[in-house]
């Protein structure tokens, strides 16, 4: 079982969390009124499928129930960092790992 650091509660077991897709997707500034259907689909449904370091939103469902952000390597399933919702992702030492395909 993975031990994942919650920025509020400290290190907790993986089973306390729910992982929920890509982080840092900004709500359209216009409120969406001038968006086409295609743009809506893009915003609501389409997500990156990164091979490597990926930024995700996680919910500490069985703990403080707060949304947090998680930097995870999708190849190794290694959790590189967790940080509070609303914060910028931290720099990681090994920038080489940010490979994309």
């Amino acid at each position, binding site marked *: 079982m993975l031990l994942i650091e919650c920025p509020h509660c400290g290190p*907790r077991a993986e089973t306390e969390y729910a992982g929920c897709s890509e982080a840092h997707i900004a709500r359209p500034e216009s409120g969406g009124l001038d968006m086409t259907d295609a743009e809506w689909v893009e915003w609501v449904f389409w997500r990156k499928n990164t091979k490597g370091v990926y930024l995700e939103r996680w919910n500490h469902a069985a703990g*403080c129930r707060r949304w947090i952000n998680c930097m995870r390597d999708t190849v190794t399933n290694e959790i590189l960092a967790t940080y509070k919702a609303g914060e910028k992702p931290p720099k990681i030492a090994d920038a080489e790992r940010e490979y994309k395909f």
Partner: protein
Amino acid sequence: MDNFMRQGPLNDLGLVGRTSEDNAQVTMGDGGRPMVVNLRLDPANKAAMKAVATLVGVDLPQKANYFVEGKETEVHWLAPDEWMIVSQNMEGNELVSKLDEALDGVHHSAVNVSDNFAVITVEGEKARALLQKAIPLDLHPREFHTGMSTQTHAAKTNVILQQVSDAPFYKLYVRRSFSQYLWAWLESGSIGFGLAISS
């Protein structure tokens, strides 16, 4: 409603008539029906925090995973802006209306959640060994000790786990409808330790 009129979900288990095993190393019991209010408030609002502290008689804890004890109140940290207030002398609705009054004009939420909870008490020399079977947290005193309270899961159900004393004595606040499940789980987990039922 008078407290004695409220039936707890563990009443159905007939714990009163149960006999304890010889040389029991774990004691479990029904922790009764607490009077609980869930409070959400911005901790940056010092005046509002002070108003609540004056009302409940103790400062709201801001340290993660701890609870503080007042004379007739316990306040548990649940999240950076969320607390559980367990009162011994005030009905949930009464406390909610007093909180709403004290926090008039402040963005907050106070909800009476008394009927949400059943409390299971676990104590004795094997209490930690028993809970450790169900809970993924490290319960070693170096990591989790008296004065701490946290939300986690025990077996498949969410609980608020509180360590009351070094005995060790734990309280598990569990959702009412899951309480019989958790009791049954812990009881079967206690096989080999010997189980006593506290009255």
